């Protein structure tokens, strides 16, 4: 049964890892703005941007 004690030790260690990750995330400001990251991820990069424009030009013609 004493293996449970060891397991608890490990489980808490893992939990502490996540706690530290959370504290780091808060400290680095990831919780300051909960709107723009969700928008930012949808931005396409430059190349697609240009192809987008060419499609628009075609439709205009």
């Amino acid at each position, binding site marked *: 049964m004493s293996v449970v004690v060891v397991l608890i030790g490990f489980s808490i260690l893992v*939990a502490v890892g996540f*706690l530290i990750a959370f*504290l780091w995330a808060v400290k680095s*400001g990831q*919780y300051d703005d909960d709107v723009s990251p969700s928008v*930012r991820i949808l*931005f396409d990069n430059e190349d697609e941007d240009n192809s987008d424009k060419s499609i628009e030009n075609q439709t205009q013609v």
Partner: protein
Amino acid sequence: MAECVHCGQECGKNPVIFDNKPFCCNGCSMVYQILQEKKMNRYYTMMPTPGIRLDAENKAGTRYAFLDNDEVRSQFLEFSDGGISRVNLFIPGIHCSSCIWLLENLQTLHEGVIHSHVNFVRKEVNITFRDSEITLRQLVELLHSIHYIPELSHSTKKKDEHQKVNRSTLMKIGVAGFAFGNIMLLSFPDYLPGGEQIDRLMSGTFGIVSFILALPVVTYCSWDFFLSAFKSLRKKIINIDLPISIGILALFLESSYEIFSGIGTGYMDSLAGLLFFMLIGRWYQGRTYESLSFDRDYRSYFPIAVTRIQEGKEEFVPLAELKPGDSILVRNGELIPADSELLEGEGSIDYSFVTGEAFPVAKQPGDHVFAGGRQTGAALRLKVEKAVEQSYLTRLWNEDKVGDDEKRSMQSVVNRVSHYFTIIILVLATGALIYWSFDDFGKAVYVFASILIVACPCALALTIPFTFGNVMRVFGRNGFYIRNTSVIEAITHTNAVIFDKTGTITHSRSMKINWDGSPLSETEMQWIRSLARNSTHPLSVMIGEWLPESPLLIAESFKEIPGMGISGKIDGHIVMMGSRSFIAGSEVAADTRLSSVYVSVNNTLKGRFTLENRYREGLNEVVSGFEGYSLHLVSGDNDAERENLTNIIGSGENLHFNQSPTDKLAYVRQLKENGKHVIMIGDGLNDAGALLSADVGVTIADDVYHFSPACDAILQSSKFGRLHEYLRFARSAMKIVYSGYGISFLYNVIGLSFAVQGLLSPVVAAILMPLSSITVVGFAGLSVRIMARIKKLNA
């Protein structure tokens, strides 16, 4: 009718066409052009019509020239080293994902920009740029050119503080949640049947691990509660944090005792859970509107730098460096920064925001002008007479700084309740201690601790944050933004309401216009309109807009005499419009009741335009909605509309006109001394003192992100007609709070009945405490939602 591709407004009959697309104005098409050149069309495809419209007059010009001054610039830069600088700008215009995209792609617009990052919640953009390629001024002008105008004001430090508090609360929630989850797992065996059979070694280990996990909860997470309890005790007040602190300490000490004496695992799980919930409550309550500013002082209204003329040269100096005797230049649309004497130029000074007078005041060289007025017309040269801090207006502002929030929280219902609550619990606990000590002293101490544990008013402490937090969000969705949750309770105590007139119950920039005189022919109307369009005086603008649209004719030898009127030659006819004395001399009897603009063509009097204030929609409903309130009106304007207002607001003795800002402040104080709880509703700087000293100050604003005087709440002007509904909703919220208290007392009574009998076991505490918290939170959230739906507010 076509919609402007840039801003989405109606384009009218003659849209500006560019690239086969309709635009409402040149400004909008200019932005489109700029973005088109840089191949940034995505701006328009991501969201339809994402742009911001600007008035034609809103040109950058030399407006940002002050940013070239080193001292001013260094105030704004967060960081500047090795040719690279970083600046954080507040841009109220940020509103959609296209905005984020454009502002984060500034480097495409200008190569000098290295990186930009938007914080949407705070409506801020953080830009890193190369000094050698773009100056701060050019950067700001670039933003201006795409219609994202940064608000450059003196301090944004308050916001940083708020951010720090928010972050630390989140971290505490994390720690408490971590401890709660893990201790719960360790305590679980004890609660299950057969738990007694776990061997001594294991339960001992579990206890010690729980104790270690609980240590940061009691020290780090609970610190704010202890601190607050201690502070209030020093002021000889009992606030809600005192019974909470007692509960936390009782829980911790009793549990530690149990763990180390090997009796059991204690109540550490309840302790961690309790703090977890209470911290969430705090965080929820503290989620206020970060992008709104409720405590701006006069400094953010005034310009940052002014043009000083020294030895014939113009230079920009920071406002603080302005000294009496300096000679300064104030251009069209700029603010007068300090009380001064007019040296040169014709002043037409708009004091509407400062004194509440509706129309610009004419000033001649030699006259005194007061700080806060806005020049409309040609540039003026002024001699500064008083330092900025000593101006009439700024003195008024400094006069009434009270720690309102602190005062309010002392009187708040939760603290009154906790006052009695704490006393009752302490009496009960001591009574039980004495009673049991006849029997068994060990048991007596246990009962004493149990009572303190179970009485910990965490459900009580959660009621207000969650109810008011939800109410605040409902208000926000309906265009009524409050500074913090304590305002809601303050609103429910008010019993007198004071309205300001200009800009508050009337529209500030539009009036009801009537023509009084011989009927005008179409050509005459065209002449008058063409003439009026040459002037930027609000009256000319309003008349110009009111007259039917027609092609504009050229006004030759146009002249504008401040305070008098305008004249010009149109199609060979001399057209004049202006004040009575300017046009008609003494021929016509004076009529002070209405603002009039007289018109003459070829020196024959044609008649006059009369302008009446237009009251905001729903004023009657709002006034009648203030049942049981005493109604007052204080206005800086003349009493031209006394009759109208008597009909609306009632009894004449509560209507006060020609009130200076100090009079308004005095009036609020006088009402308060007579035992009234005052809600003041105003809009301008002239109400600033009154708004601050009233129990609740509400500012009406067309644009909530623009400058508004310090206040407790900002109301979007379009929602004015629903103001009374918001007050009623606040009252309903108070009832929800009382019901929440009822529920939490019920749980306390149940818990206490266990505790006084010495039957409080960890399992009872572990069930009862989270259960009571969750019920209260659920009840608060649900009932606010239902209540909002009943009252037809957007929930």
